[in-house]
């Protein structure tokens, strides 16, 4: 594969074998969906911002020609506000994609056109995917996409990405790229300034016009970049010219430019959209408002939690029974009959058998729960409910030192803690970042954990679920409160969170998403399940497990009041939380845990050792030392807190 063709690229002289397509756009405008539609691959999509944190790239063929397609995190404009947006801009500036596909949510055309203005100035051929066009029609807004194509000078394609509509047209447009013509007009004075700076820029620099504009705006990242590439002297030279040009303006250059651009956007929209005077009040809007209402929001949240709980407990329990009867029991019976009792039968279907504790634990116990839970979770994601939770919990989170940008990552932690930890990258305040990373890793269950916890506690009753999760919430808030007091204040970030429109999700999209989540689970976790079972088998055989159990007896048996077998669960937690929870579920089924023990066990496994990927993410965001220290602190406190919970429960309810 020879995609590297050197750093220089002047038009068509050296045609690249593989053309690069970058998909960019505002947060939650369907970039990943378009990526999936174009490439036939699958990346996670959901109706909320920050679903994509890292670049996703893949090769694919469009009309028989090879392309490399890059899916990017959300970007508001090329004048950067945050580190994660810088990543996207850097990608565009360094990789110089051949084509940019901008995703626009038709409901928020104006917001997106600001970015369009920026992208047009790059001079890269563009295609616009005008997503969710069905929704605007329903709202009585009519968008003239041809008019947009004409005004912007780039093909604007109406699409409903969720259903894959418009994909063929996008492909066709990608095959016939042409240079965009217009960008926002800035008037003679600014244009003169731009040309003056442009002429000062190094010969081989791409995107001269945009670079000049960004320098005029005082973009710090860009100056650094130029310094790295061209040296201090050149940058100083350029800075002089920039300064001279800037002095020509009275007042703030940024304001002047924003106003010009904004007027351009207004004008484009004014000429290309018509709005019906009368439109139906929308159910979705009413629902969105209720879901974040301080009073009505709580019952709605409770309704979702209880529904999920009931589905997980009953539907998944039912599936579990069927699978056990059809798959697990016959296999175990068959193998026991085939092999005489002894090493091999133990290894396969014994207490720590790689089939029983490995394969079947994953498929029979965990998979049904995850299927049901992910279906429900996917539904909540796609209607766009989750970011609205930010509004509900904001006050509480403020009390524990999380303001502004730190709120969304914490809420995302209920999906995947690793992703949520990576999202904290955008936090500039060290304090907030520390608290957020800690709290995400601490008592928040990830989606998979939550699903299985529901199943475990469902065996003993809904009250147990309330006690366990009440405890976790309490512990989390106390921890946040303590950290907030302990760490010195630094700058607070502003809370500016876009809330997605509530949508009726496509059942197919949810099923597909669930399918992929389960597929990834099996692909990633199944081998770990089996290896972990084998490892337990080995340390049990050579006697280490017994040694550990007797060493830990005072802690586990005394302090936590749990049976010693819970150590197996804790060891499995190190590998994969679902595996541990699956074993826990089996123990509850087997009657090895009583009411209090089930609660304590769920609480400790939820807090104990964030999964391996989470720890890696913590180290990545906070540094290895801090990350590991956090993980250690979390483990120690999980033992202490679960023990206290045990004492309280025993005191209240008796044994």
């Amino acid at each position, binding site marked *: 594969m020879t995609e590297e063709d050197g750093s220089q690229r002047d038009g068509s002289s050296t045609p690249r074998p593989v053309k690069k397509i970058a998909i960019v756009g505002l947060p939650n405008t369907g970039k990943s969906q378009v990526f999936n539609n174009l490439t036939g691959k699958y990346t996670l999509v959901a109706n909320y911002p920050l679903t994509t944190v890292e670049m996703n790239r893949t090769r694919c063929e469009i009309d028989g020609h090879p392309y490399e397609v890059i899916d990017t995190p959300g970007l*508001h*404009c090329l*004048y950067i*506000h945050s580190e994660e947006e810088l990543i996207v801009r850097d990608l565009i500036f360094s990789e110089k994609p051949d084509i940019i596909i901008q995703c626009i949510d038709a*409901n*928020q*055309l*104006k*917001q997106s056109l*600001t*970015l369009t203005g920026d992208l047009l100035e790059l001079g890269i051929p563009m295609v616009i995917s005008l997503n969710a066009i069905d929704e605007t029609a329903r709202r009585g807004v009519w968008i003239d996409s041809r008019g947009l194509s004409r005004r912007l000078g780039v093909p604007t394609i109406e699409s409903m990405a969720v259903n894959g509509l418009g994909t063929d047209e996008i492909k066709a447009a990608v095959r016939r790229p042409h240079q965009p013509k217009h960008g926002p007009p800035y008037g003679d004075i600014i244009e003169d300034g731009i040309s003056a700076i442009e002429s000062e820029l190094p010969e081989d620099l791409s995107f001269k016009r945009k670079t000049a504009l960004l320098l005029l705006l005082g973009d710090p990242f860009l100056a650094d970049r130029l310094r790295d590439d061209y040296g201090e002297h050149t940058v100083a030279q350029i800075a002089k010219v920039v300064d001279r040009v800037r002095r020509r303006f009275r007042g703030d250059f*940024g304001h002047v430019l*924003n106003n010009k651009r*904004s*007027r351009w956007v*207004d*004008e484009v929209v*004014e000429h290309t959209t018509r*709005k019906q*005077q009368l439109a139906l*009040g929308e159910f979705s*809007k009413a629902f*969105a*408002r209720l879901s*974040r*209402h*301080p009073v009505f929001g709580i019952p709605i949240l409770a309704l979702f939690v209880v529904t999920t709980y009931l589905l997980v407990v009953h539907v998944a329990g039912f599936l579990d029974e069927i699978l056990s009867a059809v798959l697990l029991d016959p296999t175990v019976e068959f193998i026991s009959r085939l092999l005489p009792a002894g090493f091999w039968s133990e290894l396969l279907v014994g207490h720590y058998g790689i089939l029983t504790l490995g394969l079947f634990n994953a498929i029979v116990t965990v998979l049904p729960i995850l299927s049901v839970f992910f279906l429900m979770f996917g539904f909540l994601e796609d209607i766009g409910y989750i*970011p609205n939770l*930010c*509004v*509900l*919990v*904001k*006050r509480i989170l403020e009390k524990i030192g999380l*303001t*502004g940008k730190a709120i969304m990552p914490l809420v995302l932690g209920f999906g995947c803690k690793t992703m949520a930890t990576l999202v904290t990258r955008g936090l500039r305040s060290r304090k907030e970042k520390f608290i957020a990373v800690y709290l995400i890793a601490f008592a928040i269950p990830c989606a998979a954990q939550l699903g299985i916890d529901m199943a475990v506690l469902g065996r003993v009753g809904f009250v147990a679920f309330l006690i366990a999760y009440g405890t976790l919430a309490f512990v989390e808030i106390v921890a946040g409160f303590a950290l907030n007091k302990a760490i010195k204040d630094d700058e607070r970030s*502003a*809370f*500016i*969170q*876009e*809330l997605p*429109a509530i949508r009726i999700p496509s059942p197919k999209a949810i099923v597909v998403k669930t399918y992929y989540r389960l597929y990834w689970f099996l692909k990633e976790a199944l081998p770990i399940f089996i290896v972990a079972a084998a490892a337990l088998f080995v340390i049990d055989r050579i006697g280490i497990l017994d040694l550990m159990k007797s060493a830990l007896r005072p802690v586990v048996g005394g302090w936590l009041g749990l049976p010693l077998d819970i150590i197996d669960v804790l060891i499995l937690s190190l590998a994969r939380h679902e595996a541990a929870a699956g074993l826990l579920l089996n123990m509850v089924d087997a009657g090895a845990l009583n009411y209090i023990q089930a609660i304590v066990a769920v609480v400790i496994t939820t807090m104990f050792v964030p999964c391996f990927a989470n720890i890696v993410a913590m180290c990545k965001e906070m540094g290895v030392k801090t990350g590991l220290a956090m993980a250690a602190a979390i483990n120690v406190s999980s033992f202490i807190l679960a023990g206290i919970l045990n004492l309280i429960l025993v005191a209240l309810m008796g044994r």
Partner: protein
Amino acid sequence: MNRKRDRDEHLEQLWSMAEKGEDSIETLRSALGSEFNAEVIDELASEDVLELTEEQSRIRLTTKGKDCARGIIRAHRLAERLIYDVLGGDFESGACEFEHTVTRELVDSICTLLGHPRSCPHGMPIPEGQCCRNSSRIAQSSVVPLVELEVGRSARIAYINSRSDQELHKLDGLRIRPGVVVTLHQSYPSYVVECEGGNIALDEEIVSSICVWREPEDAQPAGQEAPAERGGRGGRAGRFRHRRGRRWHSGGQASHEPDSSAAGG
């Protein structure tokens, strides 16, 4: 984009001519210079904004035209007053652009803030607005922070006292910027603001830094979503279209008609 501006300039000039008692098309031509545009005149005539005599030598505004022109002149002269008195600047260049982009609410607000001035710095009369007739003394239509807006109401943003450039930029990207109408949907546990079709959750600090023009009491019916785009809300509608050329505010009866006015001096 400058069709509206061209039209405005023609109307302004015609008003000024009427003040001096002139109605010759040649005077208009020489006063406008290169900006004189016969197409615009035809267009305005076809819309019943101005009338021409048969031999096309005399030209004057119709009643409808006077209404339009009054608004523009009023904005222009108030802007001059504002810039001259309050800001002490070069009033002509700023005011020239001003009248093409402001809304009537904004003009009335400036008028009230300045205490309903009668004449511009050149001594020409400033046509009266609704606010002068109501002789609004309390700065009713003044600027308040968005936090003070009632939940469910909409208001136009006047300016933003942002703490940082970046924040301002970020808000700008979400189209929370001066001149845009926002609706406050919720204030607890967090503020939720709707702006150009998007919902955004904001914290109190930011919401307090956004300042909006408070609507006079009678202007807005109780809690609604983003205001209807056009049509019947007592002349206060059309918020989204305030820059459109084809819409004219029909602002009450004349009292400062060019021919009847002798005020100023």
